């Protein structure tokens, strides 16, 4: 039935002309990336439905249940205040995801604007902006975040701000590089020729063509930001107790490594899976979006 085969091939060819679909088709072939996507999706679902999944109130204290090992009543055991660790892990997903996404968005917004301006205009504007970016870049990421948190004081919102502010330099560099390579293209020349304003050119013609690397980098960066949140909370300057946060749970568990190892293991596993999920997905997206991988 040659006809049938032809039709389906034509159909696929037609559909691959959508870049998103194109990407999806290639992503599907990458098992690891699919696993990453599964982890990330699962996290989002858990975060959204935390209230239905968690068997206990994550901040409910019950000293009678202090330091109980995992059992059917408490799947992952309890901490020293008798709080259910499973419920805290579930709710901790929310804190981690919100901070990961919001802080990354802040970095992304600053980085894209700064990078696009520097890359598009070039010359002395570029030099000044990029030297400033270099200065920020030169600070060790985590130390700068600690300094900002210490200055602003520990709170949930300030974690967004601190991680957002310190993370933008990578985006600025990435976007600038992409913009420089795109802005020499013929279609940009054409846009200039028809009299389009700079703003419109950047927004409509330049940025959309730099999207692929930004998506990849953002995805992988969320994992890093979640890790940083855990680090800040571990040091006591991130999310404040009694709010459930994985980093905070780890920090609280550090004294109990020997007599209540479950307090350490579960938040560790949660952080590990989350960061792994984002990294695998990010890797997969990079391969899927790379035009050289087109067959």
């Amino acid at each position, binding site marked *: 039935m040659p006809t049938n085969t032809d039709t389906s091939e034509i159909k696929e060819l037609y559909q691959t002309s959508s870049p998103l679909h194109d990407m999806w088709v290639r992503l599907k072939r990458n098992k690891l990336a699919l696993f990453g996507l599964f982890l990330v999706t699962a996290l989002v679902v858990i975060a959204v439905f935390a209230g239905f999944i968690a068997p206990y109130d994550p901040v409910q204290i019950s000293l009678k249940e*202090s330091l109980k090992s995992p059992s059917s009543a408490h799947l992952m055991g309890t901490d*020293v*205040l008798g709080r259910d660790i499973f419920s805290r892990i579930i709710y901790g997903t929310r804190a981690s995801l919100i901070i990961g996404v919001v802080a990354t968005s802040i970095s992304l917004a600053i980085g894209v604007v700064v990078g696009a301006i520097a890359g598009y205009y070039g010359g002395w504007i570029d030099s000044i902006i990029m030297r400033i970016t270099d200065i920020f870049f030169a600070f060790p990421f985590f130390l700068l975040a600690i300094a900002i948190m210490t200055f602003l004081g520990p709170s949930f919102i300030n974690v967004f701000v601190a991680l957002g502010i310190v993370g933008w330099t990578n985006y600025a560099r990435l976007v600038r590089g992409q913009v420089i390579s795109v802005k020499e293209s013929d279609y940009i020349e054409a846009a200039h020729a028809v009299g389009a304003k700079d703003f419109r050119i950047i927004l409509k013609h330049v940025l959309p063509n730099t999207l692929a690397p930004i998506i990849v980098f953002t995805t992988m960066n969320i994992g890093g930001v979640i890790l940083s949140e855990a680090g800040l909370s571990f040091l*006591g300057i991130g999310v*404040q*107790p*009694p709010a459930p946060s994985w980093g905070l749970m780890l920090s*609280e568990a550090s004294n109990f490594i*020997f*007599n209540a190892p479950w307090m350490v293991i579960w938040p560790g596993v949660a952080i590990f899976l989350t960061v792994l999920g984002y990294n695998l997905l990010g890797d997969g997206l990079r391969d899927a979006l790379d035009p050289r991988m087109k067959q």
Partner: protein
Amino acid sequence: MLRNRKAWSIIIATMLSATLILSGCGQTAAPAKDGATTSSKPVDGGTFRFGMISSPSNLEPAFLEENNGIEIGKELYDGLVRYDPKTLETKPAIAEKWDYSADKKTITFHIRKGVKFHDGTEVKAQDIIDDWNRLAAKETASPVSFPLEPIVGFKDVNSGAAKTLSGLKKVDDYTLEVTLSEPNAAFLTSLGHPAVGIYKIAGATKAGKDFGTPASTPETIIGTGAFKFVKWNADQDVTIDKFNDYYGNKVHVDKVVYKIYKEESTAINDFRAGNLDYVDRMPPGQQQAIIKEFPGQTIKNVALTTEYIGFNLNKPPFKDNVNLRKAIAYAIDSKSVIDTVREGISTAANGPLPAGMPGYDKDLKAPTYDKEKAKEYLAKAGYPDGKGLPVIQYAYNFTQLNQKVAEAFQGQLKEVGIQTELKNLEWGSYIKALQSGDSQMFRLAWGADYPDPDDFLRILYSKSQWGANNDTFYSNPEVESLLAQGLTETDTAKRMAIYKTIQEKVVADQPAVWAFNTTYLELFGKNVHDLTISALDQKDMRTVWLSK
């Protein structure tokens, strides 16, 4: 300065995050007898390796204000009196005996003959006068000159208006007359604080700014204690040697090395490796495990410290609402917090005074956990089931332990309908906020500087301490006059009766919830004998000995 002193006591109590309790009597290590290694006859010689958590801040008597400095300082400098480490009774030291004048304002100290400084010269009355003038002087700016405050002329010297305390008089080389502004029953006891210990002032003058710092040498720190200073390697160790011409009891160990650790678990690991004979503090979370790991080698030492939750009585909602304060006192279950968060180490307090303190009343019954009563009082306070009660700010200085305790109490208060918001600060800004009255409900601990109830009750509940140590801003005219009476009454039985009444009145007013008496878990090696630890948490190096 007084303020700093308190602050330090509190800091220490807090930072070490242990609190106290029990009988208040000193405890002596009694290692399990294991045949040949234990003999009842003390063995001389050896180096006692003492694991200390965090460095002493200074070894100058005028700056012995935190636990570790006091720990070492009390071995270097003897005072006119000392505390019996087991009973905390005031016993003769450099002063052999003393007499009171008829009006109780003048005390004549008879100085023991043949007491030697570490350089071999003899201690005479003038040395004591010189040391005390220096301690009281404005330039010294000592945070621990409080024992001298009752002496006539203290204010003048402390403000810089005079050079010498007019209340000190040398009768002859071995007789010192001390005149107080008014009779003071706590004065003699407070002279056991190592801040008023005796040292050769020539060494201090020679050392100048280096006196008491790690730059000190045996030529500058010339004390009178059972041990003499050898060296201080900053952040590493302090070494002291047995002083052979000591006038007191026979000392057994040749040397004590205080090894300084930043963290408890490092010290414990060094103990396991056989590099220490004693560890002062245990890593939180592992205390029960350590008791099991080293059976018969731990001491639970109940210190003279009470940890409490204070209410700011100058501000709503606690101002003029004793029922709300009682409701909180009944809602808080210290016992279950001790069993869990505090690893079963501390004990519950029954009132303002810790158990080992003279004047402690074991029959005193401050409110303890009773959910029904908590609800009843909450309704009486005008907030049935917590309705209408604003969220209360509950402040604490940050340590892992304080935080866990605060979270536990927050949960218990919530059960009766009292909502709280936790707020933590680091120590410096925390204590400033409390002193300026910027608080609602807060945790603090008070550790005794010397074993006298005045050091607790007047310091914490007298109006004269507002803005200093009375952070609840408690004031009760009856209590105020009783406190004054307690200080001047020299008959011990009458005096203790006064303090009993004061405690009952304070408990009735409930300016605080007295939660814990701090207890420290301490670990010693199998070859350590006769290690006595007082309720002031001081370890006596004069009696300890090591079997081979």
